[in-house]
């Protein structure tokens, strides 16, 4: 009743509708801006970072924050701010790639599983259950142990443990969307299986996937940092945030800024992705009226 009053004049597309609602989420908008800024600083690191991230400054070892080195220097006299900016390249790449890989694989598995049901569903879902049964970090350690340490393998490891959650999420959505009248209507027209899945079911499942991907990005960055921290991820000279934490651990109490600033970087990034995810959920979840 009020809907018929509200819709007048301009055509509203689902995308426009999403943007209209998302814009009202001030905090999520801010989080989105933070992420854009982080990504931009990572991309343009060579021009933004004040120093070479691996150039030592032997005059300033373990210096606290100064006007010259805004976040201080580490045990080799490397500028921590520059390392964080460069490290953002590693962390964000790991986050985006692992979520993209795991998300795509999970979405495909979930869609196929939910749509066809039966034996395919049982086999795929038991497989996912096996993966889900391991605590994420243990699974990642296992994968890295098999593939060997290194940042590429960290991406695969994190992707693997993202797959089952995406698969579960999409399978659930597929099961309920499969029952909607518009999917039945499409069936009654004779629309083929692939078109049913890709045109009628997948778009309906995507809002959930997008929201979850955003939350998952935070978790993935955190996991990558953890793996680096225990020496299974990025190798020492690399300015990865977890590796920086690991380096700084020996100087806790002597030079706290070694762990403080990379920690803040991780915290801010993960928080921003989570806030963004919540905002996306509020903007996307609401049914089109």
């Amino acid at each position, binding site marked *: *009743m009020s809907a018929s*009053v*509200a819709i007048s004049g301009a055509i509203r597309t689902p995308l426009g509708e999403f943007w209209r609602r998302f814009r009202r989420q001030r905090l999520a908008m801010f989080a989105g801006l933070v992420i854009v800024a982080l990504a931009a600083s990572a991309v343009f690191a060579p021009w933004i970072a004040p120093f070479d991230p691996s150039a030592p400054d032997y005059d300033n070892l373990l210096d606290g924050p100064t006007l010259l080195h805004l976040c201080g220097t580490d045990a080799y006299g490397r500028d921590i701010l520059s390392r964080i900016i460069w490290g953002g390249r590693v962390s964000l790449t790991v986050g985006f790639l692992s979520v993209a890989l795991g998300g795509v694989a999970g979405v495909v598995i979930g869609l196929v599983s939910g749509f066809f049901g039966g034996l395919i569903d049982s086999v795929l879902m038991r497989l996912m259950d096996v993966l889900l049964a391991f605590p994420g970090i243990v699974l990642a350690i296992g994968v890295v142990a098999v593939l060997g340490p290194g940042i590429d393998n960290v991406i695969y490891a994190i992707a693997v443990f993202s797959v089952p959650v995406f698969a579960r999420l999409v399978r659930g959505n597929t099961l309920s969307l499969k029952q909607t009248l518009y999917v039945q209507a499409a069936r009654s027209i004779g629309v083929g299986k692939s078109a049913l899945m890709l045109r009628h079911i997948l778009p309906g499942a995507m809002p959930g996937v997008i929201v979850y991907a955003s939350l998952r990005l935070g978790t993935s960055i955190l996991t990558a940092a953890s793996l680096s921290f225990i020496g299974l991820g990025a190798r020492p000279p690399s300015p990865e945030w977890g590796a920086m934490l690991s380096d700084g651990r020996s100087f806790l109490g002597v030079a706290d800024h070694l762990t403080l600033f990379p920690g803040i970087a991780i915290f801010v990034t993960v928080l921003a992705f989570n806030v963004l995810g919540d905002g996306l959920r509020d903007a996307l979840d609401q049914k089109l009226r």
Partner: protein
Amino acid sequence: MTPLLDITDLTVAFATDGAPVTVIHGLDLAVASGETVALVGESGSGKSVTSLAITRLLDYTGGRISGGRIAYTDAQGAVQDLAAATPQTMRALRGPEIAMVFQEPMTSLNPVLRVGEQIAEAVRLHQGLDEAAALAEARRLLARVRIADPDRQLRRYPFELSGGMRQRVMIAMALSCRPRLLIADEPTTALDVTVQAQVLRLLRGLQAETGMGMIFITHDMGVVAELADRVAVMQHGRKVEDGSVGQIFAAPQHPYTRALLAAVPVLGALSGQTLPRPFDIAGTKLPPQDTVRDETPVLEITDLVTRFDVRRNFRLRGRVHAVEQVSLAVRPGETLALVGESGCGKSTTGRSVIGLETPTSGMIRLDGDDITRSTAASDRRLHREIQFVFQDPFASLNPRLTVGFSIAEPMRTHDIAHGAEAERRVHDLLAEVGLTPEHAQRYPHELSGGQRQRVCIARALASEPRLIIADEAVAALDVSIRAQVVNLMMELQRRRGLAMLFISHDMAVVERVSHRVAVMYLGQIVEIGPRQAVFTNPAHAYTARLLAAVPVPDPARRDRSLDLDDSEVPSPLRALSDPPIVRPLIEIGPDHFVARHSVGGRY
């Protein structure tokens, strides 16, 4: 004497992104004790908002009373202005003074609490009785709303009850505190006609016993004629006419009231005619629908059986016999109506034809060719030549696709047209169903209910089918829109020689559209024959019961149905060892067949 409720100059507004939208403009309405006032209007006319304003449940929906006075005289004789009452005052009034019954009895009952506990809770809160006394009172209330075996029903959960029973439970809850004003918001809209008749009679009886005032919100003029003392007609948030029920029906003053009454399908309007005829809209008389061609039936179903297994703990516990040995045929240009109440298997029959359900046995022929065995080729043909129109047009359109895309989908799927050619055809189809090419760019949520159903019909026509299965296709539409859509379907039938399987529970609409009628009961066809024969001379007890329950939009004929059959329709769920008996159909007139078997214990 001061009236129980006296609304003067009520204005209600809802907050939106921009300026607040006023949905009720200066409404005046009065209700006396023992009086039933029907609030009539189409969707969006503000009748439900009015009821929310009276109970001030409006405060929880984002709406606001922006002006006017709602004077309510309470049991002590004190007059209170509900428009200005505090939440505390309102909470004390809701229940003991003012009670509400809503449209959807399933969602207004708490699914995890037993029926008895829910009624007892209302009793405990407002009458201060202890647990045992409250339960006893709940049992008494259930008996009062004519629920058989109240002791057993008290312990059941809402999902175990039928729709009619749930609505009676809601009424029992509303009455638990002996309210002096009952507001019923479309309480029978979701119910079958025979159940609706039972609930209406119950409400009338209860009102006579308690002397409460009643506001009855409905869009169904037949129900109004059955129940109301006075009628207020609303349109776009304004009251356009107000008068006694006799006045409104005999001499409607406002053009909108007249249009509303003219659009109401009246059962028996075509009783002297063999052929169906479209509604007379705006005074134009359309010719009878002489479109039936005596050719090979487009669709022929023989002994169709569809059963659903019910499993619990991996063991087969029973079967739902949704469709049992149904045979029917539809010829080109013919409309066969499949009527019956919810759960009788009429929808399942339609869905089995197009493969949305898998038939257990039987044969389906399309133009004489057996297509029961689903192959890729037969499926293609089936999905191209038979199209389905669903009850809910909004839910059957993908909300993420434009209307044009949805209409073009059958063309793409069946390789009929692509690109610019498809676009041209979409525009033609939109014009054919009375929309404009601009609508192709819209999304379903931007259209009204009637427009959406037109889009669904356009989509159904896109593959140039020979048969359309319309499953309650007009049931969700407002009366005036319903008449338009029915006329559109009949016009398309005439123009394209379409055959139609018209699945409906609305006997008055069925009388308008159908050449032949098949009545279904518990999965079986109990009577099938020419429309005129079935309607004027129903041979089966169930057909007669169905026809008798239809509310007549004529207040003068109100008290005709005092000995209505109050029994519940039995469940189609049966034990494995207990298959239903299908009685053969006996010919009792030209093309008129009837099954001789028992209904509700009678033959």
